[in-house]
């Protein structure tokens, strides 16, 4: 065998990281987002991206950044709709559609990040990377989210939940 085996690196091959022992299947993060909320899924996607040495980390961070901007825009929208309902007597259902838009934005972020990270994760797993089970964190988030979100204002809670 040639000693140069590791000299040529294919661009999508995961790079070893000090946080590799924290790597999980991105599916658990997606589930964590659905059960717990954005407060958990957002930072967890970033941590996992570092842990698996994702080759698309930059792209993932960009999407997360744009996602947060979209969520903030949603926050402003819902706030504005709530004001219209209070002041101008608009139908309350308008606010519920605003909340739905925020929910859809969050789901879109989870879905895109999950799909993107899954490709790197499959390679990470293929090359024998250590994988932890994220089920407990994802399911546990359902029970702790109330405590985590309690200090925030209701409108911010909607974005983080």
């Amino acid at each position, binding site marked *: 065998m040639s000693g140069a085996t590791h000299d040529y690196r*294919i661009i*999508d091959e995961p790079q070893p990281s000090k946080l590799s022992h924290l790597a999980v299947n991105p599916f658990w993060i997606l589930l964590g987002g659905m059960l717990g909320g954005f407060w958990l899924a957002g930072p967890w996607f970033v941590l996992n991206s570092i842990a698996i040495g994702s080759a698309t980390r930059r792209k993932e961070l960009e999407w997360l950044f744009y996602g947060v901007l979209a969520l903030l825009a949603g926050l402003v929208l819902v706030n504005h709709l709530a004001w219209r309902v209070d002041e101008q007597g608009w139908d309350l*259902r308008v606010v519920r559609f605003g909340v739905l838009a925020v929910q859809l934005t969050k*789901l879109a972020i989870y879905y895109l990040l999950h799909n993107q990270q899954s490709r790197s994760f499959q390679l990470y797993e293929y090359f024998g990377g250590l994988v932890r089970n994220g089920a407990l964190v994802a399911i546990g988030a359902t029970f702790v989210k109330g405590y985590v979100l309690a200090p925030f204002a209701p409108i911010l809670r909607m974005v983080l939940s």
Partner: protein
Amino acid sequence: MTFLSPDFHRLYLQAGQRMAMGDHHGAILLLKQALALDPEHAAAHALLALNLLVGNRVHAATVEAQRAVELDPEASLAHRALGLAEFYRRRWAPAEEHLMRAISLDPIDAGNLCSLAEIYVAQGRRAEARATLEKARNLEPNDPDVLADLGELDLAEGNLADAEARSREALEQSPDHAAALVVLGHVHLRKKDSESAKDHAAWVLRDYPNHRGALHLLAAIKAHQSPVIGVWWRWNTWMQTLPDARSMLVLLGGFALYRTVTILAEDAAYVPIVEYGWLAIVAYTWIGPMIFKRMLTKELATIRLRPDF
């Protein structure tokens, strides 16, 4: 001209052999070693790109193919690799452009024509695909790859008799030709002969345990045998043909529709039915894949235990 070490040559040739045997992982490892010795070798980058594509590593394959074209813009193989990489990214125009270039650089390579036909098929341009495959057939009348591709096209058009004839012709030339066996397996399945279809899948898997077409055939057989789980498989297969953004829109569209109905008609009597229906869909799409995977794993284990495997 660059001097190539005997080590490079040996590794490059072995990689080509591994690729021909369907061992794409082995080919990738050898090409990595070869490229460590000579990172400027266009054909090695192109071959690496083709092997990466088999594992659906599209981004890496595109980078490798671009490097190959950069290093040798007159290499037909490099343009073919880049054309196929663009095809996997569903960028039809550049894919076609690079394959046309590959054909113009090497007009007697039937493989380039087959790849171009694949792009036409994906776009639903079946008449052009057939004309291109017929051209390939004129160049290589007995090439089993060309015959199997023609069989696949016949199958897509529902011409079972022609698909069977073409795949049998291919198998006369190469009795273990994986793509031809898969086409023939699908023909048997369409004729409701699941056992023969399964035999064909097993035949391919015996030689290529990870052959995507054979695994897909086996999944189609299981879906055929179990209609309830089969619905999930057909849905999933269809979703996988869509780009990420579009499949996301389909899923979010479903959720948005469900929520819109419950918001607009919150007091209507049918709302609980809609909610239970949505819950049933969520549960089904959660459990369906698990059951299907278990069924498929069991089937694969049965196949591997067969005395002829």
